[in-house]
C-alpha cells in the first residue's frame, strides 16, 4: 500500500476529494498546514511593525491506497488540483507497511 501525501490550495479541497472518490479512494485525512516554496508570500503591517509572511495556508491530504489505485489517484489529483500558477503544490508518495482498521482489526487492503 502507498501513502499519497499532497499539498494543495485550500479552495481546491472539495474538487480533489470528489476526484479521488471517483477513482475509488475510500478514505482520506486532511490537515491545515502552511507552506513555503516558490510562491511568494505577502507583507502585513501592524502599526509600526511589518511582518513578511512567507508561509501560506495550504491543505495537506493524506490517503493510503492499494498499489493498484495509485496511478489513478495521482492522475485524479493532478487534474483537480491544478490551476497552472505557482503554488499549486506537490504530491509525495511513500510506502506503507501495514494498515489496520481500529473498529474491526481488519488488516491491510481490507482495512482501507
Amino acid at each position, binding site marked *: 500500500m502507498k501513502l499519497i501525501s499532497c499539498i494543495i490550495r485550500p*479552495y481546491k479541497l*472539495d474538487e480533489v476529494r470528489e476526484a479521488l472518490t471517483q477513482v475509488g479512494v475510500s478514505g482520506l485525512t486532511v490537515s491545515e498546514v502552511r507552506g513555503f516554496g516558490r510562491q511568494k508570500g*505577502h*507583507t*502585513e*503591517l*501592524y502599526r509600526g511593525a511589518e511582518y513578511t*509572511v512567507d508561509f501560506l495556508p495550504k491543505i495537506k491530504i493524506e490517503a493510503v491506497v492499494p498499489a493498484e489505485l495509485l496511478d489513478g489517484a495521482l492522475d485524479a489529483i493532478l487534474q483537480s488540483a491544478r490551476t497552472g500558477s505557482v503554488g499549486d503544490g506537490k504530491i509525495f508518495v511513500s510506502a506503507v507497511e501495514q494498515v489496520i482498521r481500529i473498529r474491526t482489526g481488519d488488516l491491510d487492503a481490507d482495512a482501507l
Partner: protein
Amino acid sequence: MKDIKLFRDMRKGWAILAIGLLLSLLAPLAWAQAAVAAPPLVMHKGDVAWMLTSTLLVLMMTVPGLALFYGGLLRSKNVLSMLMQVMTVFSMIVVLWVIYGYTLAFNGGNAFIGNFDKLFLKGITKDSLAATFSAGVGLPEYVFVMFQATFAGITCALIVGALAERVRFRAVLAFTALWFTFAYLPIAHMVWYGPSGFMFARGVLDFAGGTVVHINAGIAGLVGAYMLGPRLGLGRESMKPHSVTFTMIGASLLWVGWFGFNAGSNLEANGGAGLAFINTMVATAAAVLSWLAVEAITKGKPSMVGGASGAVAGLVAITPACGTVGPMGAIAIGALASAACVWGVTGLKKILKADDALDVFGVHGVGGILGAILTGVFSAPILGGTGFGAGITTMAQQVGVQALGVGITLAWSGGVSLLAYFIVKQVFGLRVSAEAEREGLDISSHGESAYEA
C-alpha cells in the same frame, strides 16, 4: 415624523406649501421670519440624558454591533474588511453630516431637499435648541444633529453587507458618499422633515426609519449585489460563517442599541419613549421565536444564525411602527415580519438570483417593507394603535400611503444606487481581482489577517 422647527412654524409652513412646489425655494425665508414669533423652547435635562444615551446606542449598534453581526457571518479571511468598511463608512458619513448632510436633510428647503443655511453647522451653539414633538420642548441642537448623524451613518453601513467579500474598499467609500448625498439626504428630508417633506406631508408613518433606513439601504444593497456579481466559488465552496459567536454578539448589541434608535426617535424621555421601548422589546422577542419556529418546522432544527437573524428582522419591522402601535400589535408585527424574512433569505433569494451576501435586502428590505405596511394596519386604534397619520382616517388609506412611501423609496434609492455604482465602476472598478478575492480581502486590501494562534 421629525421636526426640528417650532410647532408654530409648521403651520405657517403648511400655508406656504399650498402655494406650490415651484415657490418652495422661498420657504427658508418665510421660516426665518416666522421664527421671530415662536414661543421659546424649554430644555429638559431628562430628555438630554436620554438623547445622549440614545445617540451613543446607535453608535454602538454600528460599531461594534453591525460590524460583528456581519463580520461573524463571513469567512475569516474577509472579516477585517467588513469591520473596516463599517467603521470607515460610519466615520466618513459623520463628517459629511456635519458639513452638509444635516442642513440638507433638516433645514428648510423644499419638499425634496433642505437648504445650505447650516453648512458646517453654521449658527449652532451649545445653547441652540431644536424642537421636539411636544410644543415648547426643545433639545440641544447639537444633540439632535448627532442623533441624526448616527442614523445616516448606520444606514450607509448597512449596505456593505450585500457587497461583502469582493468589493474594493475605495469603491465602497466612493459609492457611499454619492448615495448618501443623492439618496439618503432627500429621502430623510421627504419622510422626516415636517411639514414640507414630500412624504411627511402625505401622512406617511415612519417613526424611527423603516423607509429612510432599512428599505433605503436594502434596495441599495440589492442593486449592488447585481452590479458586483456573485462571489467566486459561490455554491461550490463552503462559505460558512467563521464565528457565529461574533454574529450573536452583534445581533445582541443591535437589539440593545436599537432602543436608542427607536425609543430615542421619540426625542423625549416620556411615556411615548416607553411605548416605543416596549414595542421594540416584544416585537424582537416574538421575531426570535417566530424565526426559530419556522426553522424548526421546515428544517427540523432551530439555529443560532436564525435566532440572530430573527432578532434583526423583528427590529427592522418594528422600527416604523414602534411609536404608533400597541404591544400586542408589535408582537404580531415581529412574528409576521420574521417569518417573511425567512422567506426573504431563502425563497425570494433564489428568485432574485443576486449574491446579496449578508441578506441586506432579504432582511432589511423585506422586513422594512412589511413593517411599513403593517404600521398602516396596526396603528389603527381598534388594533391597539394610537392612530393614523395627520389627515388620514381609514386603515386602507394609511396602508395606501405607506405603500406609496415604500414605492418612492425603492424607486428613488434604487435609481440613485444604479447610477452611483455605475460611476464608481467606471472610475475605480467595483471588484477586487480574482486573486485578491481568493486570498481574502483582509490581506489583499488591508495588509492584515484577523487571527493568529
